């Protein structure tokens, strides 16, 4: 996915031998992770045995994975269903796909909003692309005083 590709390209990858990791792991790991590095662990010249990233980076990877999963599991089937009804969706990828397929889209708002209500997607980012805070609501209704502050 584009998000995870951007993540890869902007991260420095540091190669570290298992011996080096064992002997100088603590301080070096902390310094590298503080610098937002991606650390490949393994014998020099051979395939890596582990990749170490800072917790924040790991969270970003998880989010990117979830979004990719969402795209594959929900958005793409949704795009197919919307294309069958020739609906316009608020999606760059969908519009690109339907345009390249030469599909004429309609602007029937009622058909679109019915479709959207029946085919929900998970909104995971704010208007600027940042992760959204999710709040869980718990309630315990206590009533209120029957008086007003005028």
């Amino acid at each position, binding site marked *: 996915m584009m998000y995870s590709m951007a993540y890869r390209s902007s991260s420095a990858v540091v190669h570290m031998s298992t011996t080096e990791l064992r002997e100088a792991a603590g301080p070096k790991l902390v310094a590298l992770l503080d610098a937002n590095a991606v650390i490949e662990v393994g014998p020099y010249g051979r395939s890596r045995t582990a990749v170490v990233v800072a917790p924040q980076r790991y969270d970003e990877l998880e989010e990117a994975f979830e979004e990719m999963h969402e795209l594959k599991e929900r958005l793409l089937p949704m795009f197919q269903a919307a294309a069958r009804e020739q609906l316009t969706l608020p999606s760059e990828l969908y519009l690109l796909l339907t345009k390249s397929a030469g599909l004429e889209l309609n602007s029937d708002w009622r058909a679109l909003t019915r479709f*959207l209500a029946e085919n929900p997607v998970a909104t995971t980012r*704010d208007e600027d692309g940042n992760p959204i805070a999710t709040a869980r609501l718990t309630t315990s209704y206590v009533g209120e005083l029957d008086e007003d502050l005028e």
Partner: protein
Amino acid sequence: MVIAEPWYPHPDSYWVETSEVNEYPFRYGDLFNAPAECLDANGDPWPAVLVLHPSCDLGAKAKPALPILVARVEAVVAHGRDEAVQTKIRAGWAEKDGAVLVAFANSCWLSAPPDQPAIDLYADFRRTRTVAFNALTEAGRRAAMTHDARVHVIRREIYFKYRWKTTLADVFAAEKERIGGDATFGGPRPAWAS
């Protein structure tokens, strides 16, 4: 955890049927004609208003001069030929680079009301003001929001105000508890809170 939920309900379940509207007291989410004092900066009247005020102040506690919070409402097609904008308002989200983003957080899509069934609307949470309760009722209610739609609008308003995404299930549960504890609740109760 990723939870897939629509921002808005089915368009045909947004407003109370005209034949039943008188059974429903005024509440948060109801659509009114705009009172005369609701004007744009250039002096044009607002097309309509959506009540964003706590329902209790519109019922037993209502007083003629009580200031009631409302948001400006206009037709989605007021955005002219920009169908991309219109589609984002209707969805409340937009896909970009494989991620699903909130679109126009200040907007809240409203299905077409029974008195104008061809034209869907949206409320602008950024353009709010207060109007006197009696000015609002004199302007007249155009449509009463269904309890289900109200839950969706509350969720959208929470996101606009605090930038917290909540689940529909949580807002339904909170509203159910609130209704259950409201001894003065008027009109038909939603099936999920009876």
